[in-house]
């Protein structure tokens, strides 16, 4: 019997912040840097080989700015935590509002465009 792949879930609203906004810690609560460092990075580390992380985008969230999305997702590649191809294969996106497909596509595009380990991470706080 094949063991089913375990899928972990990260709900941006309930597990992080219902008002995700800004790029850096210094921009206030719910920034992209805070999301990446305090939530996404640890969740990615917990993943076993072949496991996926499902990101729930629209639960209690009205929308995102690109500053948050770039820093939160593409930042993980830029600071050398994970290669873009590995990040793309580790992530899955879930939403019930079809308008959020746009955000999924933007996240994928930002991750693809990010250069691996191109910038040393210096915390903003």
């Amino acid at each position: 019997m094949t063991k089913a792949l375990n899928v972990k879930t990260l709900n941006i609203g309930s597990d992080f912040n219902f008002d995700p906004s800004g790029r850096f810690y210094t921009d206030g609560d719910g920034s992209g840097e805070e999301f990446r460092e305090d939530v996404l990075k640890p969740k990615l580390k917990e993943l076993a080989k072949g496991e996926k992380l499902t990101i729930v985008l629209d639960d209690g969230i009205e929308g995102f700015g690109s500053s948050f999305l770039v820093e939160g997702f593409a930042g993980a590649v830029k600071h050398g935590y994970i290669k873009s191809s590995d990040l793309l294969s580790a992530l899955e996106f879930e939403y019930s509002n079809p308008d959020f497909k746009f955000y999924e596509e933007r996240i994928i595009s930002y991750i693809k465009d990010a250069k691996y380990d191109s910038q040393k991470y210096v915390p903003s706080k």
Partner: protein
Amino acid sequence: MLTAIVGGLVGGITGAFSAFVFNFIHWKIVEKNKSLSSLCKLSTSFITELENHCLNYWLSENNREQKRLELEIVSMCSVVRSLVIELNAKSGAKKARSELQSLENFTIQIFDTATGGSFESSNRSVDNARAAKISKLCTNAKMIILRLAH
């Protein structure tokens, strides 16, 4: 005699039916054009509103209005995206395909530009170059919609 009457009747019915079909198609086209034209007007007006919010935001320092403008910019980007999807569905003309593709690209570029950089940052400063780019993108989009409307 009977043949002439039947022939006349058939001719009359055929003529009336043709006139009905012609009218029906004509008014369908008129309605479609009217609805496309009003959708174009609505899209132009929302793009202008989005442009105004963006310029107010990027051409001024942080102020009390900042949070309100940030929320409006994100939601207006979303409304403009929905309108472009509807325009795409309604116009459907093959000749307008490249124009519609340009409008789809606009929705991506305006989102990346208007909500990028130091958007939602407490240390945000005036960004003239970004404001100019936003204005140019919006003007180009309105020109494309104008062409679609005619």
